[in-house]
């Protein structure tokens, strides 16, 4: 267990909804609903479920395992999970040490996750292991930008943001490819900073 990352997100849990619960969720709701509408009938892994802010956007009657490194986050998520019309199992674990069998899940979803996983390529490789061959991963992520002046901005912001939360300059699309996934689709939501990524194992 990465205790440094766990401690950071345990600490962030108390005020997480204050920062992320209204404006960001309202702004991203149409995009997230569209991404999560691709949740199918099989077993779904949702990585870094956090305080469960995304749960109201899930289609009903799905079989979802939601994991997070922070038990404080998971405790905050429980009321939202209890209201979900379907099956969500919450488990605390580190993506690098998932106890699941190889190929256990049909689909994997993430939401603003790989800005925070300390070793993103290894984390994505761990996801690929628990995904069935040909299984889908769908990600809603923010990354760095390749364009000036946003490139400078994101690198600058990361020096501050990584102390209390996420990195702002990750290269998540490249990391997905490096982890061995077959990239299928990238849709930019805001600049080239917020994006939806779909890939296959």
């Amino acid at each position, binding site marked *: 267990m990465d205790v440094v990352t766990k401690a950071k997100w345990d600490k962030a849990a108390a005020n997480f909804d204050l920062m992320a619960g209204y*404006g960001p969720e309202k702004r991203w709701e149409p995009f997230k609903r569209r991404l999560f509408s691709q949740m199918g009938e099989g077993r779904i892994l949702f990585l870094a479920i956090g305080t469960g802010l995304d749960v109201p956007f899930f289609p009903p009657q799905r079989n979802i395992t939601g994991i997070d490194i922070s038990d404080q986050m998971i405790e905050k998520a429980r009321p939202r999970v209890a209201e979900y019309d379907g099956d969500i199992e919450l488990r605390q674990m580190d993506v690098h040490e998932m106890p699941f069998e190889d190929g256990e899940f049909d689909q994997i979803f993430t939401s603003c996750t790989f800005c925070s996983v300390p070793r993103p390529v290894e984390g994505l490789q761990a996801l690929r292991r628990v995904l069935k061959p040909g299984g889908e991963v769908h990600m809603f992520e923010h990354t760095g930008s390749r364009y000036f002046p*946003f490139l400078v*901005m994101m690198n600058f*912001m990361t020096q501050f943001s990584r102390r209390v939360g996420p990195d702002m300059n990750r290269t998540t699309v*490249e990391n997905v490819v490096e982890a061995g996934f077959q990239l299928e689709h990238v849709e930019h939501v805001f600049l080239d900073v917020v994006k939806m990524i779909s890939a296959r194992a």
Partner: protein
Amino acid sequence: METRPYFVFGDIVANSLAGVLVGVAMGALFGPSWNMFIAMIVGMGLGMVLSMAVAFPMGALFGAMEVMVPVMTTGMVAGMVVSMTAAMEPVSVMRSAVLGLYSGGGTLLFCYVANIWIRGRASKWTS
């Protein structure tokens, strides 16, 4: 492009606030005794840092990256414009605020245009 009135309103308010705040602060800090190039570099850095005071609370209300990135860019631009102007000639509080406000408006417009252009290039898969 963002068209929902609530978020467009939030973008305008956030960037205007950041521009005015950074403009007034940089106008007070810099003066004709400063070397213009040094004032520009210091102003850009301080402007970005100072704009975080607007970016985080406004981000909670109006969106995360969609607010933070333009607002911090506004901080950088307003910091540059006002610090350079103040290094050339004395600037009043009002003029600093107006220069900051224009910087915020211009930066937001630039971000909206950049958003349309970059989103149109979505087929180029890069981070």
